[in-house]
C-alpha cells in the first residue's frame, strides 16, 4: 500500500517534470533568434517560398497553438519530423540513443572501478603517503572539467602515442553485421571480438574523459565514508574476532559505507550524461549529444524538442534506479 502510494506519487512528479521541461524548451527555442526556414532555403528564395514552407511546418501559428498541436502528437507517440532530414524525430533519436547509453554506461563503469579502487586503497593505507597522493590526484581530477580531460587524452593517446581512435564510433570501412544500434553489446553477443576491440578503441577515450571527474568524486566520498565507518564499534568487534584489515574493509565497512555515496553518484551520473553532449562533439562520436548540437545549429526545432525530452526521461530513470538500489541495499528500507 505504502509502496503503491510512493510509486504513484513518483509517477505524478515525473509527469509534471517532463511537462515542465517540454514547455520550457518549446518556448525558449522559439523565442531565441534564428529561423529554421531561412537555413533550409537556398539564397534568392522568394517571400512566397518562405511563407509556404513556414506554413508547411506549422510555424505560422502562435506558439501556444503550436505547442498544443505538438503535445497532442507526442501523446500519441508522434514527435513530428526533423526539419533538416525530414525523418521522424522518434526514429532519429532512438537510433542515436544506444550510442550515448553505451558511452555513458562505459564511463560509469570506469568511474566506479577507478573511484572504488582509489577509495579502497586510500582506506587500506590511511595515514600513509599513498593516501595523501590519492587525495591530491582526486583534487586535480575534480578541478579539470571532462571536456578538458578529453583534449588532454586526445593529445596523449591520439597524437603523442596513438593507441586509441580519436574520432567516430567505429572504423567506417568495417562491415557491421548488427541488427540494433547497441554495437558494443551486440559485438559481444555475436562473439565478434574483432569488432568489439575496434568499438572499445573508439569509446575508451571519451568514456574515460567523462569518467575522470566522477571517479574523483566517488573516490573522495567513498573514502571519507569508509574511514568514518572503520571507527565504528562493529568494525572493531570484527577485528577482535581475528579478521584482517582487508576483510574488515571489504565485508564489514564497505556495504555500509556505500549507502551515502550511492545517492550522490546517481546525481553525478546525470551530470555525466549531460557531459556527453560536448564530449561526443569533441570525439565526433555519433550519439545523441552530437545530434543535439547539430539540431541546435540548424534550428531543427522538432528534433531539439525530442532530444531534450529524451534526456529528461533518462535523468528521471537514473534517479529512480538509484532510489531502488538504495532501498535494495539498506535492510531498514527493505523490511519497512
Amino acid at each position, binding site marked *: 500500500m505504502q509502496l503503491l502510494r510512493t510509486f504513484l506519487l513518483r509517477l505524478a512528479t515525473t509527469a509534471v517534470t517532463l511537462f515542465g521541461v517540454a514547455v520550457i524548451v518549446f518556448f525558449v527555442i522559439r523565442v531565441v533568434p534564428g529561423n529554421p526556414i531561412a537555413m533550409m532555403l537556398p539564397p534568392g528564395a522568394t517571400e512566397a517560398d518562405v511563407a509556404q514552407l513556414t506554413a508547411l511546418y506549422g510555424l505560422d501559428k502562435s506558439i501556444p497553438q503550436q505547442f498544443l498541436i505538438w503535445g497532442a502528437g507526442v501523446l500519441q507517440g508522434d514527435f513530428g519530423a526533423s526539419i533538416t532530414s525530414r525523418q521522424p524525430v522518434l526514429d532519429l533519436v532512438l537510433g542515436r540513443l544506444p550510442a550515448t547509453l553505451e558511452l555513458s554506461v562505459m564511463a560509469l563503469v570506469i568511474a566506479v572501478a577507478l573511484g572504488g579502487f582509489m577509495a579502497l586503497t586510500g582506506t587500506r593505507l590511511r595515514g600513509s603517503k599513498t593516501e595523501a597522493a590519492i587525495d591530491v590526484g582526486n583534487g586535480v581530477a575534480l578541478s579539470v572539467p571532462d571536456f578538458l580531460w578529453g583534449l588532454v587524452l586526445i593529445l596523449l593517446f591520439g597524437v603523442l602515442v596513438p593507441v586509441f581512435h580519436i574520432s567516430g564510433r567505429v572504423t567506417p570501412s568495417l562491415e557491421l553485421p548488427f541488427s540494433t544500434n547497441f554495437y558494443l553489446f551486440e559485438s559481444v553477443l555475436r562473439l565478434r571480438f574483432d569488432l568489439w576491440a575496434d568499438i572499445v578503441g573508439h569509446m575508451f577515450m571519451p568514456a574515460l574523459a567523462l569518467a575522470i571527474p566522477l571517479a574523483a568524486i566517488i573516490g573522495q566520498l567513498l573514502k571519507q565514508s569508509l574511514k568514518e565507518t572503520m571507527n565504528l*564499534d*562493529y568494525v*572493531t568487534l570484527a577485528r*577482535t574476532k*581475528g579478521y584482517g584489515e582487508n576483510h574488515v574493509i571489504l565485508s564489514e565497512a564497505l556495504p*555500509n559505507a556505500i549507502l551515502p555515496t550511492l545517492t550522490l553518484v546517481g546525481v553525478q551520473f546525470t551530470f555525466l550524461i549531460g557531459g556527453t553532449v560536448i564530449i561526443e562533439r569533441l570525439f565526433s562520436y555519433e550519439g545523441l549529444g552530437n545530434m543535439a548540437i547539430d539540431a541546435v545549429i540548424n534550428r531543427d526545432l522538432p528534433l531539439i524538442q525530442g532530444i531534450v525530452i529524451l534526456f529528461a526521461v533518462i535523468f528521471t530513470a537514473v534517479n529512480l534506479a538509484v532510489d531502488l538500489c538504495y532501498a535494495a*541495499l539498506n*535492510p*531498514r528500507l527493505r523490511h519497512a
Partner: protein
Amino acid sequence: MSFLSIRNLSAALKGRPEDRILRNVSLNVAAGEVRGLVGESGAGKSMIGKAILGTLPLSVEITGGQIILDGTDLLTLPPAQRRTRIGQICALIPQDPLTALNPSRRIGPQITNRLVDILHWSRADAEKRARDLLAEVHIPDPDRVMRSYPHELSGGMRQRILIASAFAAEPKLIVADEPTTALDVTVQKQILKLIAEMQARHGTAILFVTHDLGVVSKVCQSLSVLYAGKVLEDTTVRDFFAAPGHAYSRALLAATPKYTDPDGSLTPVPDAVIAATRAEVADADRMTHV
C-alpha cells in the same frame, strides 16, 4: 601463573611520547578470574582493553612493556598471527550494543562468522552453537532472532546477543568494556546478572572495565584502580571494600552510592585528593625519565 599478565605497559600519542596515556601498567588476570578495572572517565581503562585486543586507535602507540597472554608476549608476534591468536582465545563484550552490530547483516552470521572463518568450524556446527548460546542467554525463539537484522531488536536483546557471541568460541579471556553503561537501568541489572551467570558456567576469565564500584562488588574477585593511565592499587575486592589502600581509592569508594542506600548523597572526590594523586603520577613520570 596468570593467564593474562600485563607488565610495565606504556602507551602514548603517536610521535608525542610526552603525552602519556598508559604509565607502566602492570596487571594480572588468573584463569577463570574476574578482575575489575576501575577509574574515572578518561583514565585509560578502555585503552588497556584495546591494547590487549590489538584495536588501539592509529593515533596511539605502545611505547614499552609486555602483554603476556597464555605464555606468549602478544607484542612480539607478527600482526597476522597476533590477530588470529586473539580471535581464538579472547573476546570483547562492547559498551554500546546499538553500534556494535553490523546494521546491514543478519544476527546469525554475526555470531557464527568467527567460528566458521577463524576457527574453521562447519557452518552447521556453528549455527547450532549460535542457537544454543542464544537460548543460554535467555533469548526466546533463537531461530527468528538469527534471521533478524539488528535494528529489529531492542538494546537489551542486542547486548544479550553480543554476550552470546563473546562466549561462542569458548574464549579463555573476555574483555568487557562497560557492558552495561549504555543500557536502561532496569536492563543493566539483568545483563550484569547474565554476565556473572555465563562466567560461572564457562569459567572464563574476564577483565571487567567499569567506572562503577557497585558493579565491581557484585561480579569481580579482584580489581585494579587506574588514574591517568597509572595503576594506583591492585587488590582483592574483599580487601578493597574493607580498607582501600590508596587515598584516591578511599575517595572513590566514598563517592559511590551504597547499595543499601542508593539515593544517598554523593561526595565527589575531593580536590585535595585529586591534586595529591596528580602529583604522585607526575613524580612517577619523573622517576622513569631519570
